């Protein structure tokens, strides 16, 4: 096997889904690539000076500006006639869904040829599992704790792919580290888009989600099989493909394996929430035609 463009020796937790996502993305993009990243788990685990895991040029500036930094890289490359270089942003959901969202909207709006990859672990994991706009309904985080008056995060996950589609982004997709062939294909396809692209990759966080060691890929697979994480792609605003779910599993099969949902199986009102989450999965199955 060829040497990965994301070198070993990084400081990510054992069982972290993110490095798998990065390796797959870089494997698809190849060495003729520049990567921009925001502050976050990826940045702190891959670049403790004077070491770096990046075998492609990589730049980090701030938490909320990778889309703007990448916009500047893109126009500079255009200026120098180097438009053959792939340009990626790879950032977590806190940067993508929340603090950096304004600059992502600007990047989409201006039509830069950049693939924005969000490795989505559904909370601010680098600071210790705080709620982000990506945190799912009733997941427990350190800023949406459970308690007498709380069943965790009171809001559903923000639908960022739909927001990207609404910007007229020519290529938008969801992906998963449990479906590596699909993920690599989507990255390659995004890089040939005539404009920006957005790919949201499910990347389980072992510490934040609290699941059994060794189950990372299984977690990523389960969420797809419950229809809570539909795998789809939009090309020029139209749904262009979905990964069918052969045997749809009840959401409990996924939720019961994670500490962040444990309260739903014990607390008063938990059963009602589980029914609501099941309804979200059913709605996804219907909306995207996930079942045959």
């Amino acid at each position, binding site marked *: 096997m060829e040497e990965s463009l994301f070198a070993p020796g990084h400081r990510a937790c054992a069982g972290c889904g993110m490095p798998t996502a990065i390796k797959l993305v870089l494997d698809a993009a190849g060495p003729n690539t520049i990567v921009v990243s925001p502050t976050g788990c990826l940045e702190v685990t891959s*670049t403790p000076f004077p070491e770096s895991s990046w075998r492609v040029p990589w730049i980090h500036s701030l938490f909320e500006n990778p889309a*703007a930094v990448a916009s*500047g*890289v893109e126009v500079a490359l255009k200026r120098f006639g180097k438009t053959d270089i792939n340009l990626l942003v790879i950032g977590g959901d806190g940067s993508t869904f929340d603090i950096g969202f304004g600059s992502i909207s600007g990047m989409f709006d201006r039509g830069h040829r950049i693939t924005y990859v969000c490795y989505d672990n559904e909370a601010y994991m680098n600071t210790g599992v705080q709620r982000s706009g990506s945190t799912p309904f009733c997941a427990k985080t350190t800023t949406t704790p459970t308690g007498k008056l709380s069943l965790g995060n009171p809001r559903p996950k923000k639908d960022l792919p739909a927001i990207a589609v609404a910007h007229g982004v020519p290529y938008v997709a969801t992906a998963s580290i449990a479906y590596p062939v699909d993920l690599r294909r989507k990255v390659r396809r995004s890089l040939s888009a005539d404009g920006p692209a957005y790919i949201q990759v499910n990347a389980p966080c072992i510490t934040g989600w609290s699941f059994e060691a060794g189950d990372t890929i299984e977690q990523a697979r389960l969420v797809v099989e419950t229809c809570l994480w539909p795998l789809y792609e939009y090309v020029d605003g139209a749904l262009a493909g979905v990964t069918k779910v052969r045997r749809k599993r009840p959401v409990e099969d996924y939720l019961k394996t994670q500490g962040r949902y444990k309260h739903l199986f014990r607390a008063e009102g938990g059963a009602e929430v589980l029914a609501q989450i099941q309804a979200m999965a059913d709605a996804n199955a219907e909306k995207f035609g996930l079942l045959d």
Partner: protein
Amino acid sequence: MKKVVEGSYAIADAVRCCSPDVISVYPITPQTHIVEHLSEFVANGELDCEYINVESEFSSLSSLIGASAAGARTYTSTTSQGLALMFEVLFNVSGMRLPIVMTTVNRALSAPLSIWNDQQDAMAARDAGWIQIYAENVQEAMDLTPQLYKISEDPKILTPSMACMDGFILTHVYEPVEFLDIEKVREFLPPFRPEDVLDPEDPKTFGAFADPSWFTEFKYLQYQAMERAKKKIAEASKEFEEVFGRGYGGLIDTYAMEDAEVALVAMGSVIGTIKEAIDGLRSEGVKVGLVKIRSYRPFPEEELKKALKDANVIVTIEKDLSMGYESALLTDLKGAFYNSPARMPIIGFAAGLGGRDIGVKQIRGIVERASKVKDAGIEAEFEIFDVKPECL
């Protein structure tokens, strides 16, 4: 031949002559005319560059980080709230040693909202690691532009810089200016050829994080570069004079300082008014002079001590406040003299806040009060000038 143009047009034309690769812009009064003129140059084919309209000042400067790291010569301009929005990015640019050049149009910071001139915006960014040079007039602001690229892009400096110019007073005034010749600017300013760029042929990591065993050394090197910039600023000014015939002194300039008993210290467009007041006072026999600070960061400590050593009293006039402790230039100047044998009184005035006019009459009033300090002693070391009791 001189032409009468709006200040903003003159700046835009100076930027054009520096042949930037990437310009990233966001509108905010009174900076907007600069970037509008630049967009016209691009639209008319008079300036070949990438020009991007971004969604905030935060992103205008952030996008230039990417462009500069990819090897581009970059430009933006902003003011006031825009500079405040960039605050986090400012430190990042200097820490990453990217030689971005920005025109900072000086304007008050809200609240209360004010679009008018003072220098609170840039002074609040004093410690951001940017070279800050303040222009007295449109011609100086214009001529500063190529000088700043030359200073910032020097491989031994690699520090971003801002050309500070007073909002409206300089950006919107029509003044006769001598235009730069693009061929001569090319002769003065070599192309930007950074050693470290984002290049898949030679992959490098930019913006790694530093733990406590490295961080101090990064800051030490930045500090050293800023020290080296002192010499470079003076050199660039001299070289500019050789090519274009217009000189501005080095880090500071002086006016009527030979036998001055009262020495005024200021920066920006108020310098012109002070010079006029001094001409009048000198004709009446008042021994008053002026030290104009061009470079506020790096701070010209040695030059100031030398230029001011024989004064009986030093008076700062500045357009900024540090809530809780006087104004920044006054504090810096007192600090410069503390370990020197010279022991003259130093007093300061915060004036011209939020666009309040400072005329010759006000300057004369300040000089009159300063003249009494030598015999009567310091009445007030610091004062907010021209406060109207009836408005309080």
